């Protein structure tokens, strides 16, 4: 089964200042097979975050159909199978990571499945156990990224939607996260990954799509894209050829 399917999705915004309608996603269609790691690339303002928000039902498309795990994203049960990490950590700053992980594990029911102590085991896996009772407002940027990743993994989801998971991380932490993503791929997880760091995309992704001005410019295997000059050159060439 396809884990994620978008069919002719269009989204327009009306700018308050310009009073003009701007098309953010223009008849966007692609699908993502289960168990693949999919890199979603594009320049700033291409529509990557909008696409991700549509998958999570944060934004409602103007037209088109979206399926996640065979279901429409507006059915909230769909999100039991999705782990989401946003570009900017979206957490309640006065809460501790332990409390937020507990919240997620209760809401998703994993506490019942995996038993007491699950929170601690997950925090240990992401290197945050010693910070369990520290409010998130006292976390560094790298720690917040790790916390966001931990929250995405709480309920052992089948599908991970990660928006810039590697941004703001030091090289050591980036390496650890990439190894974690490879580990998750081995477990058969489907990973939808948006990133600007193309070197890291090459290390972990199976397929990629390049988005520009709301349209897919390229979709295919990463090996095919990077076979000649590497992914970065291919990315630049794709965008400049079509402008």
């Amino acid at each position: 089964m396809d884990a994620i399917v978008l069919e002719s999705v269009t989204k327009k915004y009306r700018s308050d200042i310009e009073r003009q309608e701007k098309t953010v996603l223009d008849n966007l269609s692609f699908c993502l097979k289960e168990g693949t790691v999919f890199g979603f690339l594009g320049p700033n303002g291409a529509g990557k975050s909008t696409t991700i928000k549509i998958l999570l039902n944060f934004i409602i498309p103007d037209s088109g159909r979206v399926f996640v795990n065979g279901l429409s994203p507006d059915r909230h049960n769909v999100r039991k199978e999705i782990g989401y990490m946003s570009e900017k950590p979206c957490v309640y700053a006065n809460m501790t990571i332990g409390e937020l992980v507990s919240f997620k594990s209760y809401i998703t029911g994993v506490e019942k499945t995996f038993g007491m102590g699950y929170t601690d085991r997950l925090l240990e896996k992401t290197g945050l156990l010693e910070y369990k009772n520290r409010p998130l407002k006292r976390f560094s940027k790298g720690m917040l990224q790790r916390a966001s990743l931990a929250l995405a993994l709480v309920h052992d989801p089948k599908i991970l939607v990660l928006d810039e998971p590697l941004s703001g991380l030091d090289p050591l932490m980036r390496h650890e996260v990439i190894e974690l993503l490879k580990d998750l791929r081995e477990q058969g997880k489907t990973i939808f990954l948006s990133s600007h760091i193309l070197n890291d995309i090459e290390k972990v992704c199976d397929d990629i799509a390049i988005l520009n001005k709301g349209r897919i410019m390229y979709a295919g295997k990463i090996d095919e894209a990077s076979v000649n000059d590497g992914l970065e050159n291919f990315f630049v060439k794709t965008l400049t050829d079509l402008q």
Partner: protein
Amino acid sequence: MRLNNILRIALLSFKEGLRQKVIYGVSCFGLIMAAATYAFIPFIGFDICRVVIDFMLMAVSAGCLMIIFFLCLPGLVNDIREQTVYFVLSSPVSREEYILGRFLGFSMILFVALVILNVPALLMVKLYIIKYPGYVPLHFGWHKLLLASFFKFYAALVFLSFVFLVWSIMESGVLVSIASIIAYLIGQNINTVKDIAMNSKTMGITAKNLISLVSWIFPNLGYFNLNTYAAYGVNLPEHYLSKIFVYGFSYMGVAIVITMFFFKRRDL
């Protein structure tokens, strides 16, 4: 809709709200009001206990209002601006459960504020009853004072539901604040304005209908003002308390349902 989800979100909102320390500011406000009462009331030569009761109920009302404007409203606005709403809604939680959970969580904070504000308020009233026994109204009763205080909290809940409604429609935090302030002012005075309008022989039918419409749209907070009842123990009209309770509950219900309707269709 799952009650467990709503309660979990309520608890999250409650904990997050308490840690923002606004409640400490409100507690200090309660103490300052009590101290001001102690300092200035002796200069009033008449109806001392009535003035003390009025003052203290005003402090409870103002304290609840501060919680709404400095904690609840910014909390809702920041949920969208800082995208903290994504944390909740990326879980298997419906947007309706989120709204109900947030409302319940904020209500719990308002209740804590009510309890905290009542402590110095009741102590002050007790102090003045002991100090000026001759000024104690004939039909004064502690249960009446507590009831009046409870309805200040209840009025705050009704107003909070209106704030939720406005927030679900407007994107700008500033506009939400302005609309809420206007609604509060209208809500406090609409009863008086409506009485004058309906009894006026010079006001046109259109103006009267408009005022009537406004009284339906905005929460009529004047209904919950039981200061005179608390201070003098005057009899309320028959079934008044149950009527205002039903009015408040109905208004909250309608406001929250409309909030859910708009929020469900909103891009976050």
